């Protein structure tokens, strides 16, 4: 636990340094920030939008907005990742609002906007099929169960952060996580 804690601190320290360099106009530093966060952010967006083009648009917008926000970032003292994910989350909410959908937490119409099959052409048909089943099973979950699954297993957030986001206790998150995973396993068996 301690070593992991130190790793996180060291990583955060590196990112802070990169952000400082990027603020000074070092595009290489911004490139390294991009490499560090692009996949997690893309996955964050893809699991919620289920469309490669939209997910890439959101990812691109996040980095462009982050680039423009670099000056203001250090003054606020938040981890840089929180800025990125906040931008991404707001962008996804706006995306659903534009599509006459509800909030990020309510994906009831997600199934209707599933990818048309042209996403990720580098993936094999087998993998694409598996991915479709996973998304289908996720869609069948209750809203809070789907959210805790995404936060925990897609976004890799610790229970403490998920508890804050979902306004629940860590104990409640632990129980919800168990029930959500159990429900997902049942959906997999059905699918």
């Amino acid at each position: 636990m301690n070593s992991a804690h130190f790793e996180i601190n060291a990583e955060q320290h590196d990112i802070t340094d990169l952000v400082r360099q990027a603020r000074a106009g070092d595009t290489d530093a911004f490139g390294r920030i991009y490499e560090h966060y692009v996949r997690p952010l893309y996955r964050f967006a893809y699991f919620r939008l289920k469309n490669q083009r939209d997910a890439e648009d959101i990812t691109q917008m996040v980095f462009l907005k982050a680039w423009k926000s670099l000056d203001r970032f250090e003054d606020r003292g938040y981890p840089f990742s929180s800025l990125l994910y906040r931008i991404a989350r707001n962008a996804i909410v706006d995306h659903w609002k534009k599509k006459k959908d509800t909030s990020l937490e309510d994906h009831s119409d997600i199934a209707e906007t599933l990818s048309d099959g042209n996403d990720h052409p580098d993936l094999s048909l087998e993998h694409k099929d598996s991915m479709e089943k996973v998304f289908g099973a996720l869609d069948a979950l209750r809203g809070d169960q789907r959210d805790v699954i995404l936060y925990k297993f897609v976004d890799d957030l610790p229970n403490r952060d998920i508890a804050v986001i979902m306004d629940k206790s860590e104990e409640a998150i632990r129980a919800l996580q168990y029930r959500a995973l159990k429900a997902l396993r049942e959906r997999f068996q059905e699918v």
Partner: protein
Amino acid sequence: MEHHNDHEQRLAEALEYALRLHRKGKPIEETFERFPEYRNELADLLGTADRLQQTRERLAPRKELMASILSGTEQSVTGASENRSLSQDARRAPEHTVLINSHMRSTLSFFLPIGVVAVLLLVFGISYFGEFGGNPLATNQLAPEANQLKQAENGLPTEETASQSVRFSADTASSGEALNLDSLASDEAEALQTTSSFESFFEGEEGLSDLESLLDEL
């Protein structure tokens, strides 16, 4: 029901423990040894979690995205600054004009009457001090020149008039003031000489050429 809740709570704890070990890269067997009664359930749940994470790992944006973002940042920097300047200029022009007009209006409404009054006062002051003089000394110094000019226009002898005025002043003044008047008389005589030297300066060709050379020097 209570037993079910205890079982669920205990399984939730076991799952959390297994996930933490998995995150640290430790073998799942440690969890099974610690929670042998939940071995099968934990194996299913961890398999589900693993399937999710495999799906996640396969997802990646196109490689072109990086180039697109970097070009976007460049465009946002250059384009934004250009647009910013353009839009600001476009916005500023009318605003600036309005501001200037407004400022000018308020400034003119305040300063214009004052300026007119000041100019009138200046003209009046110049004419007043030029003709009568506020300072007695200045009056005495300037009066002969002014009188000389007027009297020259009227064809009167200037030196005589000046000496008469000095004499009149000397007669009516006290003995203490007589010294001052004497000095004033000598000043007047100097002034007359100066005036006559100016007149002679402007009379001849020589004077004009000197003036031109002086202007050239300046």
